[in-house]
Each structure stands twice: as C-alpha cells, then as structure tokens.
C-alpha cells in the first residue's frame, strides 16, 4: 500500500470515575505476512505492524504484539479504567521502523 496508514480510534469523550471504557482501534495497513509469493515466484518480504501500544497520560496500560497471522487493516479493541482526565496516546510500530500515532482526550467527571 502506497498510502500512509491511517489510524482510526473510537474512545468515549467522557467517563465517570472508575468506569471501564472500551476503546476500539483500526489502522489501514496491508500486514504483508512474508508468506505470499509474487507472480515471479519470489517471496514478498514481510512488512507488518509488529507492536501496538496504548498509553494514558504517558503510562502504557495495554500492549499488543502482532504476528503475521493478524489480518490486514488490523482491528484491536481493549478496555481502560478511567481514573482522571487526560489524553490517550496510541502508537503502531511498523517493521520498517515507522511509527503511526493517534491521540484522544478523555474527561473524567
């Protein structure tokens, strides 16, 4: 894919204290497994997003290591216990060293 991967994140904007919120993320990425072969018989080199991290106010609360068995345009959902207002930072690390990022604010009432 020549387009830059675009992350999409769905997080509630507001939460009550100690409420557990669900976070859904999606990023456009072909997740080339390194198993496929091109028409000329050569293996297409692996290029996947290998790590996803979710942090809140700088502290990582969830991390996922993805293997080539993760589908293209990987979806990932997880939960978070809201304790204070702040900002989420999500990051996706590509095999080629690129890092794709997305941020979202959460207000705790």
């Amino acid at each position, binding site marked *: 894919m020549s387009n830059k991967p675009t992350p999409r994140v769905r997080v509630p904007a507001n939460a009550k204290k100690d409420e557990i919120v669900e976070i859904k993320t999606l990023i456009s990425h072909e997740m080339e497994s390194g*198993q496929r072969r091109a028409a000329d018989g050569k293996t297409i080199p692996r290029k996947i997003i290998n790590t996803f991290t979710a942090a809140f106010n700088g502290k*990582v609360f969830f991390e996922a290591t993805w*293997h080539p068995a*993760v*589908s293209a345009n990987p*979806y990932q959902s997880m939960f978070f216990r809201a*304790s204070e207002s702040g900002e989420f930072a999500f990051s996706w690390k590509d095999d080629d060293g690129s890092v794709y990022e997305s941020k979202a604010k959460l207000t705790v009432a």
Partner: protein
Amino acid sequence: MAQRAAQTRRETLIAGMASFAAAAIAPSLALADAAAVEAEIKKLYGDKKVEAGKIKLDVPQIAENGLVVPINIEVESPMTAADHVKSVHVFADGNPLPGIVSYTFTPESGRAAASARMRLAQTQNIICVAEMADGKIFTAKSEVKVTIGGCGG
C-alpha cells in the same frame, strides 16, 4: 535394455515430480503443529503448571473466510494491583507460524479483554495462554473450521 531404460525414465520422472512437489510445498506450507505451539508455550513458561479455565476464548466455530476471523478473549480477573492478568498469548497449530498475538495487560486495563481479527490457513485449534500476577498460568483451546484458507496467494 529398452524396458530397463523406460523404467529408469519413469523412476526419474517420479523422483523429479516428488522433488518438485516437495520444493513447491515445503516453503509455503511448512505449517506449525501442536508440537510447535507446545514448544512456544514451553519457551515462555518452562515446565510451570498450566491449568485449564479462567479464559473465555470467543472464536467462530466455522469461519468462511480464513483471512478475517474475529477473535475475542476475556480472562476472568478483578484486575487489581495484586490480582490481575499480566499477559495473554494466542497461538494457532495449523498456520505457517504458531504465533498470532500477545497482549500485555495492566491493572489500568480494567478488564483483561481484547478483540482482534486473525488469518487462519486452514481448520485448526486456537490456543490461548494467560499469565496471572501471582504466576499462575491458564489455558483455553477452541477449534475453528475454515472454509477458505487465509494464506498463500
């Protein structure tokens, strides 16, 4: 003489076909198996006891498209500082590589649950292993029947 030559030709042909088939299949379909998954789990936890239970592994019984198979995992835990799920690893015993995903949870996660989508090359077992904060290890297994494999090209 002629017969012997023919036999040799046939043998050569068969041998050739066999090696061609082996060459064609070996790199792309060198699939992991149950032993490979066990080896991966052993690598993680050594000879520690692995118990069944605690994990709710939600995968379809039949997946029509192996390229996108939903997987939802939830581990029973209060998710407090003293008692929470540290990590969850998911393996498949019929894919080219045994690993699918590994998750690291913290007490801030609130719930040790996550969903994703995976590729499955064929009908196979999904094996999930969870490590608790107290060092206990739980496992769950579920078979997914795959109609169209999600590998190759």
